[in-house]
C-alpha cells in the first residue's frame, strides 16, 4: 500500500554549519486514518521534521538530503505555487501556541473561512454555513463566529485552530504539541476530538509531543527522537510496553505515573554520551 506521507533519510543542517546534523537520516511514514507520534526532548529535531514536511523551514536551515513524499509526490520538486495548494488544503497544521497563532484583529469566523475561500472558492451563505458547521464540529457554539480570539479561552482558541486546519478536509494533519499549553481536562477533550476527526475523516495524523501520556492515548505508531536521530520506532504497544532502546527506557522512566508506584529516575546523560547510544 502506498503511504500517505513517506519521509526518507531526511537530514537537516544549519546553512553555515553543514556538518551539524539537527535532523539526521530520519525515515518514517504515515498511513491514512492512523496517528504517528514523534516524541523527544527539546532540541531532538521533532519540530524541524514537521516544518520541513510543510516546506516551512527557516532560510538559515538547509535540507541537506532526503525525500519527503506526500501521496506519492516529492514535495521538494513542487513549485511554491503547487506547495501552497497542498498547504492548508491537503495538509493541515496546528501549532503549539493557540494564543499567538491566531490573528487578533480578525474574527474567528473569518479566519476559519479563509482557507475555504482560498482553496475551495466558497463565498456568501455557503461559506457561512460551512464555518458554522466546522465550529459545531469542534464544539464551539456557531454564533461565536463573530468573536475575536481574545474573547475565547485557551482551549477554545485551540479548537478554532483545529477547525481552521480541518476546514478543507485535509488528508493529513500535522499537530505540533497541540495540547501542551492547555489544562488537563481541556487536553483530554482536544485529544478525543482529534481522535474522532481522524476516524470520521480517515485523516493521517503526525502528532509531535513530549508527553508519553498523550502518546499512549492517541498514537498508533511511535517514533522516538534523540538529538536528531530516530532511536526507536514501532507500534505504540511495542515502544511503550517493550522499549528496546536504552534512551526510550530512560525517557519512560522519568515520566511520573499517576499511581505514584514507580520511583522517578532522571536520564543519565553522561552515560548516553559515552557513545553507548549510536
Amino acid at each position: 500500500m502506498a503511504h500517505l506521507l513517506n519521509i526518507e533519510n531526511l537530514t537537516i543542517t544549519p546553512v553555515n554549519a553543514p556538518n551539524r546534523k539537527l535532523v539526521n537520516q530520519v525515515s518514517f511514514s504515515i498511513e491514512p486514518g492512523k496517528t504517528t507520534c514523534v516524541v523527544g526532548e527539546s532540541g531532538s529535531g521533532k519540530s524541524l521534521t514537521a516544518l520541513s514536511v510543510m516546506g516551512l523551514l527557516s532560510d538559515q536551515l538547509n535540507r541537506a538530503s532526503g525525500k519527503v513524499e506526500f501521496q506519492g509526490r516529492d514535495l521538494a520538486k513542487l513549485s511554491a505555487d503547487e506547495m501552497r495548494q497542498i498547504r492548508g488544503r491537503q495538509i493541515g497544521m496546528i501549532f503549539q501556541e493557540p494564543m499567538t497563532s491566531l490573528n487578533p484583529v480578525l474574527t474567528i469566523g473569518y479566519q476559519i473561512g479563509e482557507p475555504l475561500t482560498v482553496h475551495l472558492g466558497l463565498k456568501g451563505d455557503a461559506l457561512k454555513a460551512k464555518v458554522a458547521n466546522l465550529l459545531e464540529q469542534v464544539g464551539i457554539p456557531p454564533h461565536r463566529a463573530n468573536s475575536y480570539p481574545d474573547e475565547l479561552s485557551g482551549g477554545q482558541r485551540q479548537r478554532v485552530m483545529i477547525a481552521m486546519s480541518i476546514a478543507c478536509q485535509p488528508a493529513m494533519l500535522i499537530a505540533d504539541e497541540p495540547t501542551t499549553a492547555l489544562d488537563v481536562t481541556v487536553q483530554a477533550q482536544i485529544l478525543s476530538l482529534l481522535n474522532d476527526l481522524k476516524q470520521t475523516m480517515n485523516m493521517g495524523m503526525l502528532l509531535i509531543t513530549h508527553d508519553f501520556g498523550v502518546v499512549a492515548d492517541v498514537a498508533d505508531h511511535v517514533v522516538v527522537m534523540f538529538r536528531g536521530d530516530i532511536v526507536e520506532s514501532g507500534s505504540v504497544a511495542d515502544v511503550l510496553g517493550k522499549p528496546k532502546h536504552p534512551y526510550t527506557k530512560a525517557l519512560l522512566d522519568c515520566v511520573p505515573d499517576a499511581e505514584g508506584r514507580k520511583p522517578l529516575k532522571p536520564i543519565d546523560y553522561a552515560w548516553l554520551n559515552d557513545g553507548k547510544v549510536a
Partner: protein
Amino acid sequence: MGEFVLKARDLNKSYIQRSGRFGFGTTKVKALDNVSLDLKHGSTLAVVGESGSGKSTLARCLLQLQPLDSGSVLFQGRDLAELPAHELREQRRHLQMIFQDPFASLNPRMRVGEIVGEGLLIHRLGNQEEQRERVVQILKRVGLSEADMLKYPHEFSGGQRQRIGIARALVLNPKVVVCDEPVSALDVSIQAQILLLLKELQQEMALSYIFISHDLRVVRHVADEIAVMYQGKIVERGAIDDIYRSPSQEYTQNLLKSIPGQRALALSN
C-alpha cells in the same frame, strides 16, 4: 510551636476585571473564596487546579506579595498581616518562592552570584567572605559550580536556570517554600531531575513546601497532602493516597480521569 508551620484562615481576594465592549464594564472575579489550609512541618501540600482557579493568587497572598481582602495567614503562629514592616521583612527570609518560568524570573542583567547572594545582602547575614562561601555552597548543592557565579542567566539551559531559582530561594535557609509550577516549563527528563532535587533538599533542610501544579502525575510523586481548587474555592482536600484512590468531588474525579496515559496503564497491566 505546633504541628503546623503555616496556617491560612478564610482567605478572600477578588479582582475587578474590565469587561464588555471596549472594557467599559466591570466584573468582580473571586480569585480566593474562603480558602483555608494548613501546612505541616517538613511536608508538602500540593494545590492543584486549572488555570484561573486561583492557585497562583493563593501563592502570592500566602507570602504577602499581594494584600488580602480578608482572612489571615499565620506563620509559626503569628499573623503576617499584623506584623510591622520591618518584622515582616525579617520573617520573609523564612518564606521563599520558586517560580514557574525559569526564563522570566531571573534578572538578565545580574550575574548568578548576585542573584543568589542578594537575599544574604538584604538580610545582612555574615560578612562578604561568608556570604560568598554560602552562595558557593548552595550553588554546588543544587548541581552548579563556583565558576557559574560569574555567568549571566542567558548562558544556562531551562533546567539549570530552575536550579539557580532554587538556590536563590534556599540560600537563606527558609522554612516554607512556595513552588509555583516549578517544573511545568521543563522537559520530562529535566523535570524528573528537579523533582528529585527538591525532595532531597526538603529532607536535608527540613523544608515545608506548598507545591502548586496542574499536573496530577507530578503531584502524586511529591505531595503528602493535596488541596483541589476550583473557581477560587478549595473543593476537596486530604491525604494524597485517599484523594487519588477515592475522590469524593465530581470535579476531582474529572481531573483524575483527564490524566493522559490511561491507555498505557491498560496496556501494561
